[in-house]
């Protein structure tokens, strides 16, 4: 760790020494400013300059913007049209360029909603690169930045990784403004806060921390912001970069933050006193802190009847157990403890394994690795081919491997059940960490049988009870136990009975539903 950071610092110095310093003040000369801007950005082909003069005698002006990042229609309508149709009127009294002209333009002429003044080249270039338009007026050392952002965007679509039958169908997009909009539309509370950060020395991404003031514990916000401020990355193309930087233990196999593309999930989390971290350029929003229990929850648990929600959750815990332990148990029971298998099952397993060339361990690893390969191939391949792979893999390889006498049919069933069980977990990142743990358990079972499984289980337990996510123990409310939070853990109690917000979040306002009713 120490080694790493020293290297990083050295790089930083080198970078800055090479770069020219552009944080200079603007000059009063229009031409010089334009040349400087162009020089700074190295005259890219999509940087457009449109010079013009206000009135007959007015000062020379120019707008600079990047084609593609801006909405040309807005530039035409709210800047050019307004200035040129009233050019004589505006230019009156301004034979000499003055700062007051900028104010007049800003207050009276330009009809864009957001206009601001900047004085340095750095700010100007950042604004231009963000899709805003810079308006230069000759003779002033200030310029106007007009919001003309508008680019091709993916529209709001259905969530891909977290499907539900019942529930809202909108998902976050790559545009952070759309995403904040989706959250605001769900929580119209005046206390909903969006705090902005800028991430990435090069990419300068927008990052927004969302929380509800008055619910969230103030220390949590402080901690999140503190951690975000330590981020020193070149760029952050996805929230995974942020997650790995600010999580408590990057050596842990477990995800310590929730990522989701469902706005409804984020909204619920915010009202529970959690914090959402939105990054521009990715539809995956982080929710912190995350707990083991929350990883097993799906928003649909709350949308369908509570009994079904509770049953499905119980089923998911069972699925998680299968996904972790099933192949390991198979190995242990078949190679060490056949006495623990019911007699008839033991005989039929023995019958199917007769004549197989590999011990159970090799057999299990063969099939599990094949399964992981199929899964990986299914993701990479184009969708229509991906389905074919599923059929080829599932049917042909499974069936052929059995009839070729390489694996036993029982093993195929176990691999299939394991795969299905791990797919049924609602959090993808949690499911993949469970997939990984499975192999550890299989190795433990191969060497030490059930004893090894128990040892590995104890190890994982020691780790998981030590794990914290932003100060909140990962296993809470199991341990440390908060009995009242068990209403929404393995079981999901009816919504009117869940009157309090999660106790482990130590929310400032702990009452979700007032028993006395609306007042």
């Amino acid at each position, binding site marked *: 760790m120490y080694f790493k950071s020293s290297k990083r610092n050295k790089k930083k110095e080198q970078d800055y020494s090479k770069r020219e310093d552009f944080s200079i003040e603007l000059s009063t000369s229009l031409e010089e400013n334009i040349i400087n801007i162009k020089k700074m950005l190295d005259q890219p082909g999509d940087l457009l300059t449109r010079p013009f003069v206000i009135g007959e005698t007015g000062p020379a002006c120019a707008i600079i913007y990047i084609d593609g990042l801006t909405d040309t229609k807005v530039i035409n309508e709210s800047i050019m049209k307004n200035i040129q149709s009233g050019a004589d009127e505006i230019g009156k009294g301004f034979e000499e360029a003055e700062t007051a002209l900028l104010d007049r333009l800003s207050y009276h002429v330009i009809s864009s909603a957001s206009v601001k003044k900047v004085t340095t080249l750095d700010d100007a270039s950042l604004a231009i690169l963000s899709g805003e338009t810079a308006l230069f007026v000759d003779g002033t050392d200030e310029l106007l930045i007009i919001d003309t952002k508008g680019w091709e965007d993916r529209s709001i679509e259905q969530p891909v990784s977290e499907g539900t039958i019942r529930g809202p169908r909108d998902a976050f997009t790559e545009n952070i403004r759309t995403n904040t909009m989706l959250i605001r539309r769900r929580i119209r509370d005046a206390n909903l806060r969006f705090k902005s950060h800028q991430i990435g020395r090069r990419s300068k991404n927008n990052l927004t921390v969302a929380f509800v003031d008055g619910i969230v514990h103030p220390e949590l916000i402080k901690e999140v912001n503190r951690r975000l401020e330590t981020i020193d990355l070149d760029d952050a193309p996805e929230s995974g970069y942020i997650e790995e930087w600010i999580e408590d233990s990057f050596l842990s196999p477990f995800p310590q933050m929730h990522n989701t593309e469902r706005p409804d999930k984020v909204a619920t989390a915010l009202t529970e006193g959690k914090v959402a971290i939105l990054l521009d350029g990715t539809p995956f929003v982080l929710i912190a802190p995350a707990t083991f229990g929350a990883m097993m929850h799906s928003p649909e648990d709350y949308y369908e009847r509570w009994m079904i929600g509770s049953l499905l959750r119980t089923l998911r815990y069972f699925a998680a157990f299968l996904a972790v332990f099933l192949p390991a148990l198979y190995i242990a029971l078949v*190679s060490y403890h056949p*006495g623990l298998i019911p007699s008839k099952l*033991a005989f*039929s397993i023995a019958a199917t*394994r*007769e004549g*197989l060339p590999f011990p159970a361990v090799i057999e299990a690893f063969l099939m599990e690795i094949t399964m992981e390969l199929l899964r990986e191939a299914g993701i990479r391949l184009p969708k229509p081919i991906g389905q074919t792979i599923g059929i080829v893999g599932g049917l042909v390889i499974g069936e052929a491997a059995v*009839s070729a006498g390489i694996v036993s049919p029982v093993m195929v069933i176990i691999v299939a059940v394991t795969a299905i069980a791990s797919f049924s977990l609602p959090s993808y990142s949690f499911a993949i960490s469970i997939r990984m743990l499975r192999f550890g358990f299989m190795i433990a079972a191969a*060497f030490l049988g059930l004893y090894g499984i128990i040892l590995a289980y104890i190890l994982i337990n020691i780790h998981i009870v030590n794990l914290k996510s932003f100060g909140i123990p990962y296993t809470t409310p199991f341990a440390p136990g908060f009995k009242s939070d068990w209403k929404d853990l393995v079981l999901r109690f009816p919504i009117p009975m869940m009157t309090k917000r999660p106790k482990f979040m130590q929310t400032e306002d702990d009452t979700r539903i007032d028993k006395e009713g609306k007042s």
Partner: protein
Amino acid sequence: MGKRISYIILASLSLLFLTGCWDQVQIEQRGFVLGAAIDLADAPSNGDPSFALTYQIVAPGGLGGGKAQGQSGQQKPFFNVTARGSTMFDITRNMASETSRTPYLGHNQLVIISSEVAKIPHAFTNILDIFLRDHEMRRTVKVLIAADQAKGVLQFKSPTAKLPVAHIVSIAENARKNIAIAPPLQIGEVHEYLLIGRSVAIPLITMSSQGKKKPQINRMAVYHGPSERMVDILSNEETKGLNLIKGEVQGGAITVEIKGESVVYEIRRAKSSIVPKIKGKDDIKFNVKIETEGKIAESFANIDYRDPANVSKVEKKVEKELERLATVTLEKLHEDLQVDVFDFARYVKKADYQLWMSIKEDWDSGKNYFSQSTISIQTDTVVRSEGAVIDTEE
């Protein structure tokens, strides 16, 4: 520091790889022993009895479970291996030299001991020792005594089950249908009796001699605790009576005669209560009350069961029959053999512990206080249902 950690990891990994999986045996390489039969071997060499142990080992390929092999239909699903020796462990080790698969007793379901062996003092307890002591053994193994050769029981061809042992085990579990079949006796329970030197009745398996050989379990062998040997075999009727007195009947039929024709009473529920009355060593009384509840399953006699008087007539007859069975049993066990397989001793111990401590050595041996006690039988029968027929044709 990095070097040190990598050494530690290397060392702990080598711990795993060097020791390896020392007790790993793949499931298909184990010889699952399903049943064991113990006979007396012919030549006792040095005076110690020598035994012949037969294991029935499953050949899973023949069970038809796995189709991976293809031609599995031809294979016999089991094979019997016999070896001789003076101790069970010895024999098992001898057996390993004969079979391709090492015997694994984790799935053993049955131990059959021939009556010849059981009659030798101490032999029965000595044989059972390994079936209780070894870590592979289960306490749910059923214990039977074979009337003649035990090995023969494992060799018959079952028309329904693929494995003879499975057939025998399912007969033993038919207690619901027959009064003479006691609930299967597990080795763990036998162990409890052996530990305190009590007597116990063990189900007896006989092979019917006429026609195709078929196993039958409808009698019991009497094992005398203090002398550690089997003393006699009960008849079918005596077995019924024993089960009734012990309250172990789960179902079965009693046939009585009314107006010269048969009426079958089916027991659905039966219990017995034993109340001891102890005034001293020589004055121990037991009141046994046998209560049954059931229905009329078959009636050759044309009786109008709508009339309660007729129903109670049947009840009276059944009570008498139950009493007769119980008395027959008591005559044999209480008067002739003087062996307490009813477990009356337990009631004495519960009722008067001090007294019990003074007489426990002489309960059904020596002075035999058991034979001096008096046992009275009471029966009570209820007909719950007369069946779905009102009129029977003349």
